[in-house]
């Protein structure tokens, strides 16, 4: 029996090693970019930070007009006020940067805990450690605060590292699997819309390319603005959007900051490495 257990454990470890040997984030990134460069010839890498406005001329004209008076500005100011309120805590948690200019490095794999740390997660952890009430994950105050903090990273290239650690590789593979898995009653994956059909239309909307998606989050959406209230009403985090996308294909969404969405964010952000942060973005 003991021999059998040892043999099975060895086989399991071997299986794990084989699975991880197949994981090659750098190669994935190369192929991912190459696909979009072929699909949208002549569109430079940094244009993908602008979502559909980088690949659709008529929508770009509309967006440029919107950006003359960006609707998110009062919300970013509200985010800055919140930042100032908590900055003494952030100095303790984030060191000298106090949380400014760090967006491009999130999410990251924490080798100590084996967990993926998102910026939203790090902020709420910091608030809790300092006796403050954590903020709601998907919208409102936290989204506005992150919008401000992300804006201090504008121009800095996304730089996500997937170390050669089986735990980090497992997070990456989980996110990649979510991204390419068809789900929900409509049987559609993230990739079906944002890779295969990027630039195409779904009803009156243009489907954005997945490359560069994360560079402009949190985003300020006109749809959310209409439903929300106050100057921060239009903001939403990446995980809010993930939930919305899952619902749109009639899949039960996961909770914001769940392991599933943290893994997806890790993979999704890695795929945009090298693209400069351009937050917050305005979207429909």
């Amino acid at each position, binding site marked *: 029996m003991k021999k059998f257990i040892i043999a099975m454990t060895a086989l399991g470890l071997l299986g794990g090693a084989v699975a991880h040997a197949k994981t090659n984030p750098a190669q994935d990134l190369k192929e*991912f970019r190459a696909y979009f460069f072929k699909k949208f010839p002549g569109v430079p890498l940094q244009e993908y930070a602008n979502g559909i406005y980088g690949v659709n001329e008529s929508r770009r004209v509309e967006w440029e007009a919107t950006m003359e008076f960006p609707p998110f500005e009062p919300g970013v100011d509200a985010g800055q006020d919140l930042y100032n309120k908590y900055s003494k805590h952030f100095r303790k948690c984030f060191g000298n940067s106090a949380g400014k200019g760090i967006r491009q490095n999130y999410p990251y794999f924490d080798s100590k805990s084996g967990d993926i740390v998102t910026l939203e997660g790090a902020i709420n952890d910091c608030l809790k450690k300092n006796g403050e009430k954590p903020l709601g994950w998907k919208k409102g105050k936290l989204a506005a605060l992150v919008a401000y903090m992300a804006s201090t990273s504008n121009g800095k290239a996304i730089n996500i590292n997937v170390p050669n650690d089986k735990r980090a590789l497992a997070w990456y593979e989980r996110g990649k699997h*979510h991204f*390419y*898995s068809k789900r929900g009653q409509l049987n559609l994956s993230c990739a079906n819309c944002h*890779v295969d059909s990027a630039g195409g239309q779904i009803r009156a909307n243009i489907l954005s390319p997945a490359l560069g998606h994360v560079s402009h989050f949190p985003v300020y959406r006109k749809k959310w603005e209409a439903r929300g209230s106050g100057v921060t009403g239009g903001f939403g985090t990446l995980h809010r959007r993930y939930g919305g996308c*899952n619902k749109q294909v009639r*899949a*039960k969404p996961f909770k914001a900051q769940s392991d599933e969405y943290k893994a997806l964010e890790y993979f999704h952000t890695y795929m945009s490495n090298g693209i400069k942060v351009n937050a917050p973005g305005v979207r429909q």
Partner: protein
Amino acid sequence: MKKIAILAASSLIALSACASGPSKEEVTPVIESAKAENAAAKKMGFMWRDAGKMIKKAEAALKEGDTAQAMKLAKKAEFQGKMAQIQAKEQANAGPAF
């Protein structure tokens, strides 16, 4: 005339049997099965959006005595749970097509 009366009476009996729908005892296990199928789909990370609502509505309909509606919703939710599990298995090796 007698034949017509017999036919009308038998039609009425048949109609009332249809209107009464399935019994509570018939619906309850289908609701339980729908719950189990969707719990399994959820565990696999592939539960569909509306199945949970359907089960709740089926339970409410059963409570109100509308067993036909309860059965219809429970079967739909049960089907969705089964389909979601098939989907999860089919997507086990999902990856890029390029």
